């Protein structure tokens, strides 16, 4: 379940800089899942521009910032503040489509498959007074791609060969290979534009600087490690002036404390667990907004370890679990069962494919047919993940009802991920995958291709071949056909049980209006107001 509890620093999420293949998606599909802003289009209280920004909003973070330096971050936790401080060439709308002129690039033009020319916005200043221009863009990407900087974001951008200055407000991006999602990638964490002079002056101290300037609507005024990050409205912001004066991001590690802070009014925006929603219900001041996200959670069944190396055993497990009951009870209904590791947000999602049916009799029969003498399963769970433990206990009971013996083995959070990647976990491994590229390739390649790091034990030559094929296919319709084929092949091998698309439960105090809660978790405060 680590997709649900946003704890791990790596959030494995392949945050992939929230790539997103927005353009390839049908927006009607998104309409069904896209989050709605907290307030109905109620008129914001902005009047005549006379009043400056006012008020303060507090947002809970679950763990400390990895860094203030955008290229040093990868956890989604950072997205909650970062977008408000830094500017990117590309801005995506709430449906994850790139908006021309929404970011620091006014427009872009594809010269050929490998060259894109960007027209830059003029008159933009960094918080420290430096000018934003072509040099800043070239510098920022050189810095990102420089291996010496060891950016965890770098690998998302390796298709970029270089950025060149054409004139002060024009740059050309040259690719060394085709990357169909490179434009949205520029809206990701690694694409933040930094002020060259400032960074150079700071030198080696830059990584520990606490006043890194960006071009966003808010600037950093104070950062106290493991405690808080305070942002203040930047009066020189090029876009519409923000209405809230101060944003305080507080790091609160304990779930129960976060809820208490939210109930006490100490925190205005918080991500809740399903079990906590009931405590908020009935409150006059607080609201909960379930937001569909592309993250899919499920139980990986390790195909390299007995008895889950037997496909009938895996099938028996899949049919023995009553996913809908788990969702209705422990997850309080805030999830949707999925057939394979793809959400409806994803390019390659096949709506025809149905989740494995709950059928204990079939499960018993499959287990008997498997011929496995000792149907003992070891189910891993992270020690401090309360929801995952509840699910584990419930699922274990369902499996035992059809004849399995289940042991639940608790793991420490940090070692869990390494053990997973090393393939040293056991039969049943709870896992979450962000799928933030919104494209099946990222998920399938990492999780099913033989020998990939997020694939502990699954191997199928046919799937490998198809995945290779779609990677070199530029025709999107053809790619979709191949991915549908892969869906089916994977589905028939039962590599994962109890898949569901997660929902984030944002708790928002009603005094905060018009807060954007996009599916990529990157809260956007520039248009929000507070009373």
């Amino acid at each position, binding site marked *: 379940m680590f997709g649900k509890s946003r704890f791990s620093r790596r959030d494995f999420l392949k945050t992939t800089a929230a790539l997103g293949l927005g353009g390839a998606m049908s927006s009607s599909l998104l309409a069904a899942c896209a989050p709605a802003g907290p307030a109905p289009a109620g008129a914001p209280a902005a009047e005549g521009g006379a009043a400056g920004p006012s008020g303060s909003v507090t947002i809970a973070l679950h763990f400390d910032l990895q860094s203030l330096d955008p290229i040093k971050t990868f956890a989604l936790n950072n997205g909650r503040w970062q977008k408000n401080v830094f500017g990117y060439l590309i801005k995506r709308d709430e449906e994850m489509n790139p908006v021309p002129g929404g970011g620091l690039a006014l427009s872009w033009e594809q010269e050929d498959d490998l060259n894109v020319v960007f027209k830059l916005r003029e008159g933009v200043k960094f918080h420290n007074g430096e000018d934003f221009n072509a040099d800043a863009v070239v510098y920022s990407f050189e810095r990102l791609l420089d291996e010496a900087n060891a950016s965890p974001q770098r690998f998302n951008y390796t298709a970029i060969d270089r950025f060149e200055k054409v004139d002060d407000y024009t740059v050309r991006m040259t690719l060394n290979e085709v990357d169909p999602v490179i434009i949205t990638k520029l809206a990701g964490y690694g694409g933040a534009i930094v002020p060259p002079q400032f960074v150079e002056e700071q030198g080696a101290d830059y990584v520990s600087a606490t006043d890194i300037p960006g071009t966003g609507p808010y600037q950093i005024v104070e950062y106290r490690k*493991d405690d808080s990050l305070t942002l203040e409205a930047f009066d020189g912001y090029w876009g519409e002036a923000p209405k809230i004066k101060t944003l305080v991001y*507080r*790091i609160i*590690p304990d779930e129960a*404390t976060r809820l208490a802070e939210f109930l*006490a009014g100490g925190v205005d925006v918080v991500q809740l667990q399903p079990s906590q929603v009931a405590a908020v219900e009935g409150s006059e001041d607080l609201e909960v907004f379930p937001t569909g996200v592309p993250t899919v959670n499920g139980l990986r069944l390790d195909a390299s370890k007995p008895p889950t190396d037997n496909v009938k055993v895996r099938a028996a497990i899949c049919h023995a679990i009553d996913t809908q009951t788990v969702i209705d009870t422990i997850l309080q209904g805030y999830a949707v069962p999925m057939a394979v590791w793809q959400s409806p947000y994803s390019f390659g999602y096949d709506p025809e494919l149905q989740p494995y049916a709950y059928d204990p009799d079939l499960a018993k029969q499959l287990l008997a047919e498997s011929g496995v003498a000792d149907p003992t399963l070891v189910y891993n769970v992270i020690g401090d993940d309360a929801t995952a433990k509840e699910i584990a206990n419930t699922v274990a009971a369902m499996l035992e009802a059809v004849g399995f013996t289940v042991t639940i083995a608790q793991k420490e*959070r*940090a070692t869990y991920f*390494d053990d997973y*990647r090393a393939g040293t976990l056991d039969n049943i491994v709870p896992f979450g995958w962000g799928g933030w590229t919104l494209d099946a390739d990222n998920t399938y390649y990492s999780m099913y291709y033989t020998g990939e790091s997020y694939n502990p034990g699954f191997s199928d030559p046919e799937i490998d071949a198809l995945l290779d094929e779609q990677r070199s296919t530029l025709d999107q319709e053809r790619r979709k056909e191949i991915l549908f084929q892969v869906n089916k092949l994977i589905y028939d091998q039962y590599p994962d049980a109890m898949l569901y698309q997660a929902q984030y439960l944002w708790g928002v105090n009603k005094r905060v209006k018009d807060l954007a809660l996009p599916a990529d978790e990157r809260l956007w405060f520039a248009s929000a107001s507070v009373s």
Partner: protein
Amino acid sequence: MWNYLIQRLFYSIFVLIGISLIVFITVRLTGDPVAMLLQDGNPSQEDLDEMRRLLDLDKPVPVQYVNFLAKAVTGDFGRSFRYSTPALGLVLERMPATLKLTLAAMSVAVLIAFPLGIISAVSRGSPLDFGVRLVSLIGISMPNFWLGIILIIIFGVNLRWLPVSGSGGLKYLIMPAIALGSALAGTLTRLLRSSMLDVLSDDYIRTARAKGLSGRMVLTRHALRNALIPVLTILGLQFGLLLGGAVIIENVFAWPGVGRLVVTSIGLRDYPVVQASVILLAVILLTVNLLVDLLYTVVDPRVTLD
């Protein structure tokens, strides 16, 4: 006295070396930080080797340890893998918050324990005494995070008298200090009660009373002073427990102390920070215990150190 101090100092150095060795080895058993640092970049083997070299992790562990020790003596504990800043600086930055919490908890405990312990001893056998004993036992019997959550719900959420969590002025300190200090308060109350009773029955107190000294004089001059010895011992011993308990309380109250730093650092395998924190905490504990021993001689002239 000086011999004693020199011997203690010598022992302390030995203990610190032992602790540094233990933390150095165990932290390396938790796993490889390099894979963790580079995991999101699909790193090549060369990348891994390069990173290992940069972090001084490519040499055999004994060599690493000697290098570490040589630098640590000069106050250089290496740079945090996570923040890229000096590890010692990170720990020192957090230490005041933890010490503040720990000392506040101790003060809460002492402030509660002294009046209660004295009242209880003086009114031995009365319902009041029974009540005090019960309350102090309840203080000992409640897991501190449970007490913390109950305090949060009552005073933070329902009454809204105090902030739920975070750091800042005195009002942020009240609930965590009570949650952390309640067990010590209970222990101290019981201890004071029994050592007061002990002293009150001693001959010289009886003599003092017989000589016509007032009850209050006897209490403060003689009884309390002598009862301080075991209290000091316990305070010294419990200081380590408080620091440990602070790890939990810091999490409950989102208090930015060393406890949280070191817990996350163990998880992230930030070796330098774990090493620096453990060694620094040990230095503080050793110092506190030495101070306690020295205080004995002040409180009770009969005690000599050798």
